């Protein structure tokens, strides 16, 4: 037991206690939380800063809007319903098309208007929000998976999680939905986390349920050495999250849209730690390097990304050729729920 703790320490693996005490509490002022906890606010901030986000179709804030839900949804053949204060992908419904007056989910399940109304109504009363506070719902454009990832995802939309400390990207991973995860990019439910080398944007082997895996279990395609497109844009976008929110320690979730390229989905003020498993590397040494660099004073987004690309890579001797890591997905730590 002690041996393993020592090994983890030697690899610089970050634990929850230390994450909360040394990073979340230190760099994230409570007063700035609302702008990441409320996805509507995040979206507005991002739009104001010129960062790409999925287009907001409607926002549902009151029960009476549900009566005319069919009218509201009329213009959109496909869309996504999200709770503004949701966490871990809970309460998200993705409608891909319409069949016989039914709404068809990505996995083929048909929902009636009634189902949608009930879902939105529980969403409004806070069923998916932290602490059960009344919530509002966002209806936004459905992201079309970039062809690069079509080969390695099942039903859902893969996303890229970049953890940034003080605006410096520290680690990144690609989260791929599987059949086991019901098309959700949730690592706990069996999604695959694939580490990404910050310097190159190339993936290396992934992790599923804590086991190393080099191919997608549903499509059997290789997970290694996929070049994530728009990599520099993605890193820039992630790094800008710092100026956007004033939060020093965030996880930025980004999706790649077939038409619009990288779009910022949401930010997380308590990014999870599974990214370390996906990358097979600890976060601590990267954070320490970033903290040391940040002491030299403010740097521009481009400088920060450049620093990260040079610094935040795997230092240990590699079996793989690529010196980056795999990624995995991570949920919000349950401690905060």
């Amino acid at each position: 037991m002690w041996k393993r703790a020592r090994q983890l320490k030697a690899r610089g693996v970050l634990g929850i206690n230390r994450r909360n005490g040394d990073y979340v509490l230190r760099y994230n002022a409570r007063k700035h939380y609302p702008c990441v906890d409320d996805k509507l606010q995040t979206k507005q901030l991002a739009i104001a800063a010129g960062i790409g986000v999925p287009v907001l179709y409607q926002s549902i804030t009151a029960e009476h809007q549900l009566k005319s839900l069919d009218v509201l949804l009329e213009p959109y053949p496909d869309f996504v319903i999200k709770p503004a204060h949701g966490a871990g992908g809970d309460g998200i419904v993705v409608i891909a098309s319409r069949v016989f007056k039914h709404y068809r989910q990505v996995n083929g399940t048909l929902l009636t208007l009634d189902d949608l109304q009930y879902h939105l109504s529980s969403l409004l009363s806070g069923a998916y929000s932290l602490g059960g506070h009344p919530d509002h719902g966002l209806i936004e454009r459905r992201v079309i998976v970039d062809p690069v990832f079509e080969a390695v995802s099942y039903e859902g939309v893969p996303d890229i999680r970049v953890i940034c400390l003080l605006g410096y990207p520290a680690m990144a991973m690609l989260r791929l939905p599987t059949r086991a995860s019901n098309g959700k990019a949730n690592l706990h439910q069996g999604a695959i986390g694939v580490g990404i080398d910050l310097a190159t944007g190339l993936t290396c082997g992934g992790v599923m349920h804590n086991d190393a895996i080099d191919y997608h279990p549903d499509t059997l395609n290789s997970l290694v050495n996929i070049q994530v497109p728009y990599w520099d844009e993605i890193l820039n976008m992630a790094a800008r999250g710092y100026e956007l929110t004033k939060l020093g320690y965030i996880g930025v979730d980004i999706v790649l849209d077939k038409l619009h390229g990288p779009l910022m989905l949401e930010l997380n003020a308590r990014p999870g730690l599974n990214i370390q498993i996906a990358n097979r590397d600890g976060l601590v040494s990267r954070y320490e390097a970033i903290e040391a660099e940040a002491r030299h004073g403010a740097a521009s987004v481009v400088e920060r990304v450049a620093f990260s690309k040079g610094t935040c890579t795997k230092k240990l001797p590699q079996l793989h050729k690529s010196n980056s890591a795999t990624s995995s997905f991570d949920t919000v730590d349950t401690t905060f729920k």
Partner: protein
Amino acid sequence: MKSRQHHLYALIGTLFLIGVTIFLYRHVALDVPLTETETVNSWMVEANLRFTAERNRPVQAHMTIPYMPPALVILDEYFVSQNYGVTTNLNADNREVVWSLRRGSGPQSLYYRVILRETDHQVGSLGKPLLQKRRVLPDNQTVAVETMIKQARESSADIQTFTQSVIHALDKRDGNARLLMGDEPGERALVQAIMTVLNQARIEARPVQGIHLKQETRAETQWFLAVYNEQGWIYINPHTGAAGLPKNFLVWQYGFEPLFMVSGGKVPQLSLTISPTPMNALSAAKTRGLQNESKLLRFSLLALPVNVQETYKVLLMVPIGALIILLLRNFVGLMTFGTFMPVLIALAFRETHVVWGVILFSLIVSFGLLVRFYLNKLRLLLVPRLAVILTVVILMMLLISVMSLNLNLGSGLSVALFPMIILTMTIERMCVTWDERGASEAIKAGGGSLLAAMIAYAVMNFEALQYLMFAFPELLLVLLALILSFGEYRGYRLSELLRFKALSGAA
């Protein structure tokens, strides 16, 4: 960062030091016992004064009550007397209680109850006496007394032996003795005779009335003699001449006066009931504190009313429960529903006992879950849904109580003590977790909550600890220091060792 840490460590150190210092002071200097089982011998004496009040006349009842009795210490006393006004006065060597009432009628019953404990402290309330004049005696008695004094002087060395000689002389019941004691030699006459002789010999003495402390419903007062030997008072048995007070003798009054006096009432009667009451050392120490005027001992929870004390016995264990949760969550990484929900469940376990508690808890939560899943189909809004679950939970409790009553399972009744709001929230959260993260996650967190509750219960119900926290509330400061220092733990949780297994192998 550094300054924050220094600040924190200084705070931890200060809290710890203050807590431990007060604890040690109270234990070592004030003798507050460390365990509850330390008991001391103590007695309860109840004096019941009964009389019939005369119609429409003011009533005043005087009764002597013990005051700083030698070898005993008064731990507590109560006056029970419906609507009477109660005052206590000190006069000369005695203390008396005066009960008064403007108008009374019919039979009256007044109680005085005192709790006493043995002590090594021998000094009584008697102070240094003023020199008393020799009384003038009738001629026939003078001769008898002088003879007796002369004889006694010859066969004695000091005041004590002189007194003892006088007692022996009177015990012979010869002519002189009978002359002094009168024809019917009772205890009182004997003591009076001794007093007369001692007075003529210019020796200070007091008659003493008191009782032997032993289980008795109608205790009789007995006589003793206190004699001043220029250094202090010594007690002498007027029958045998033995010096020293016997063990467990309670001095009630000095002097010949009757123990009680009632004006405005007829047929007064006093009965004394004595019973041993083993008392824990803590209460005894508390009383000592009251007598010592020690502020630190006075800051004791024992000064609170008994029912409030019981509440605090429970409340003081809650921080301990919180500490356990802190350990389980931040060091072990156990998943629970709600941060301190297990502590509340553990509190309920105190009443239901742990096995029953677990059974009842699981029963209610699983049935509640079924209802919750059914409600999913009805598509209720959040608040009505919670209200329904709450109602169902209470119905369940009712059902379990009624059923267990019919099956003669007493423990089932205690289900009512479960915090139902907590149960309701648990059911709701468990259901949401079940839906969104799967059954295994939900059951894991539910089981974790239950496990945490059981561990918290085991620790919180540890009686020695309970007593310690109650007797030494300053230990809360130490606990605070402990919690603060544990809060500084930044290492891995046990569960993380498992979680990051993949990262621990060959680097």
